[in-house]
């Protein structure tokens, strides 16, 4: 499985904040996605209809999850009926082994891949390379980050952090092309390089945006046509899909294919919607000879089993929550330390990987709630973040991981807040302790309190008022209650 570096969240986010180029790209790309989404929704549906569509999509996905065993079985039967093979993989290692086995059995040398986040979870490229099989990403963004040896920066725009200069440098190094700043030229270079691979590949690996249970159809949504090439040109087609990708019927796609591109990039429809029904039939002129669908768990059961977290599996990976998240918009995707970033990354990474390693992620949110408002399947992300925080603070031994400082703080707070006298005592102590640092009602620096000194590095902290409101009330305000117009209001 891809390495989980979420423990580095704080350091990595600091680096991103100081990277001016990155800040610039983030601002522009996010602004573009947000604007495009808002206007297409307003033009096409209006808030009310959009809301109704989201509600329906959430209900369809939720009910599929509630009966997932039933639908998994249906997918299995449908795909086999179409002449394909179905596998269930518990984790990344199993999934990798299944793919490797198919590749080896068929003497595969080159694999072309269209975008698949599950394959990122699996870290399959390294596994294939180790066995002497060349994996080539064919989504332009994925191709760029593959050359750079990085992980996706954004669910739908994996290389959005790369400038044209950086891409040109990568192409010069790997493809031996001439330097250029012209984006069209760069695309031509990539296209030339990839065409060769498309022609040579024996196996195509794709992800799946949706898997239709009733018909066994795999639906892919792409903008570059590489998905269509991957699924039709090579002899063998392998689909890697998270087991939550299922929708019951083809009709459901009518709804989801409206929601997904609009939420993601503000497009009405993506350039290519590809529907794959299995291997080539005797009457077909082309298409793969073999079709394999690998349904992957890899931590998803941890979400499914938890009644509160289950709804996270409704996610259709549109990226809207990233684009609208004030935190993601500042730190980008890599700081989250695994495959998924932004609000959705913060809720799925800890349960899917390791609660302790990813303990910072549920806290890496202001809980502003914008994600929940834009999510096309209405995942209540703030609620799920709070649920995970509860696990970090008070959960089972294997999940709990707060620092002694946090526990000390909460203990003190708990003591003070159940009793006004205790609170006033502590407040008086606070007044005494902060007095030497207060100037004109402000505290500019609090050196002895590590939890607060982060605050005062950039902001003044209000010095405690010389007397509490309760005292003010007792000593002055309470007596004014005989107001001339003092009527009861209720």
């Amino acid at each position, binding site marked *: 499985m891809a390495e989980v570096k979420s423990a580095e969240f704080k350091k990595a986010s600091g680096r991103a904040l100081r990277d001016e180029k990155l800040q610039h790209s983030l601002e522009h790309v996010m602004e573009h996605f947000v604007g495009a989404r808002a206007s297409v929704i307003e033009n096409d549906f209006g808030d009310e209809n959009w809301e109704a569509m989201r509600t329906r999509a959430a209900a369809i996905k939720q009910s599929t999850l509630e009966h997932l065993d039933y639908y998994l079985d249906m997918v299995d039967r449908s795909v086999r009926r179409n002449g394909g093979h179905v596998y269930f993989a518990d984790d990344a290692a199993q999934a990798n082994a299944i793919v490797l086995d198919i590749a080896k059995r068929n003497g595969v040398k080159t694999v072309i891949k269209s975008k698949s986040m599950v394959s990122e979870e699996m870290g399959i490229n390294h596994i294939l390379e180790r066995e002497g099989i060349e994996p080539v990403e064919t989504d332009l963004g994925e191709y760029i980050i593959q050359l750079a040896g990085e992980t996706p920066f954004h669910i739908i725009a994996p290389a959005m952090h790369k400038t044209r200069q950086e891409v040109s440098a990568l192409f010069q190094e790997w493809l031996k092309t001439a330097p250029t700043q012209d984006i069209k030229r760069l695309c031509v270079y990539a296209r030339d390089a990839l065409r060769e691979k498309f022609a040579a590949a024996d196996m195509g690996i794709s992800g799946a945006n949706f898997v239709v249970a009733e018909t066994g159809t795999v639906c892919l949504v792409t903008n570059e046509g590489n998905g269509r090439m991957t699924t039709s040109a090579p002899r063998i087609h392998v689909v890697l899909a998270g087991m939550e990708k299922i929708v019951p019927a083809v009709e459901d796609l009518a709804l989801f294919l409206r929601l997904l591109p609009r939420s993601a990039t503000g497009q009405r429809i993506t350039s290519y919607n590809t529907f794959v029904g299995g291997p080539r039939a005797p009457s077909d002129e082309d298409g793969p000879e073999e079709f394999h669908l690998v349904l992957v768990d890899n931590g998803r059961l941890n979400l499914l089993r938890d009644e509160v977290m289950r709804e996270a599996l409704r996610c259709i990976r549109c990226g809207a929550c990233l684009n609208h998240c*004030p935190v993601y918009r500042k730190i980008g995707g890599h700081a989250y330390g695994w495959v998924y970033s932004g609000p959705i990354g913060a809720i799925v990474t800890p349960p899917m990987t390791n609660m302790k390693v990813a303990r910072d992620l549920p806290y890496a949110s202001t809980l502003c709630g914008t994600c929940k408002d834009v999510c096309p399947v209405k995942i209540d992300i703030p609620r799920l973040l709070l649920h995970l925080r509860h*696990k970090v603070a008070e959960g089972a031994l294997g999940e709990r991981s707060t620092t002694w400082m946090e526990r000390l703080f909460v203990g003190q707070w708990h003591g003070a807040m159940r009793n006004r006298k205790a609170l006033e005592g502590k407040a008086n102590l606070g007044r005494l302790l902060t007095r030497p640092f207060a100037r004109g009602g402000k505290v500019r620096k609090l050196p002895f309190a590590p939890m607060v000194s982060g605050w005062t590095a950039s902001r003044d902290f209000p010095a405690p008022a010389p007397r509490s409101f309760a005292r003010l009330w007792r000593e002055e305000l309470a007596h004014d209650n005989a107001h001339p117009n003092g009527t009861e209001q209720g």
Partner: protein
Amino acid sequence: MKVLRRLGVDVSFPEDQTCCGQIAFNGGFRSRAADVAKHFLDVFENEEQVVVPSGSCASMIKVYYRELFEDDPETLERAQAVGEKTREFSDYIVNVVGTSDVGAASEGLVTYHDACHLLRELRIKEAPRDLIGGVRGVELQEMENSDACCGFGGLFSVKFPEISTAILDEKLKTIAESGAGAVVANDCGCLMHIRGAMERRGMNICAMHLAELLAEDGTDG
């Protein structure tokens, strides 16, 4: 308090009150939060109406107590009863007292920051704007993206101060660009955060709670 009294509301301040428990709840320390929330219920249960000056506290009481006491039906019932009679300050004045003119007077351009919980948990958007509009001599000048988060997020601002400040920078920029002399918000957390940075940077804009603006009667600018 001054404003409510001016409206003829009989206001009391139960002296035993402390905190709604949100900070621990948001930290994940639910059992600790529940103790403090119960204290809150003890103190306020017998009041006729509870008016809260901060959007996030109001949303804690009205929305998140339901979650906190999910497995404790008895307290849940009490919490729901208190939640129902709890109103956020601006909502109370406009929708319970029924006025947007509290007889306040000041001067200048004022811009309004939509605090996240007020807007997205309680869906209160118009009431504070109506009240600002009702202040004589004051004009409301909307800033761009008034509904964008200021980066406070309670614990978040302490745990991740760098990210929090970077988000705040955007907010300060839009506040300054609005040309207003003051920014009003209905959340004490956001205000502490925004004010703290404006003062540190010597910005000549004042960050005030809506109640502070409404308390002005034009005599002291």
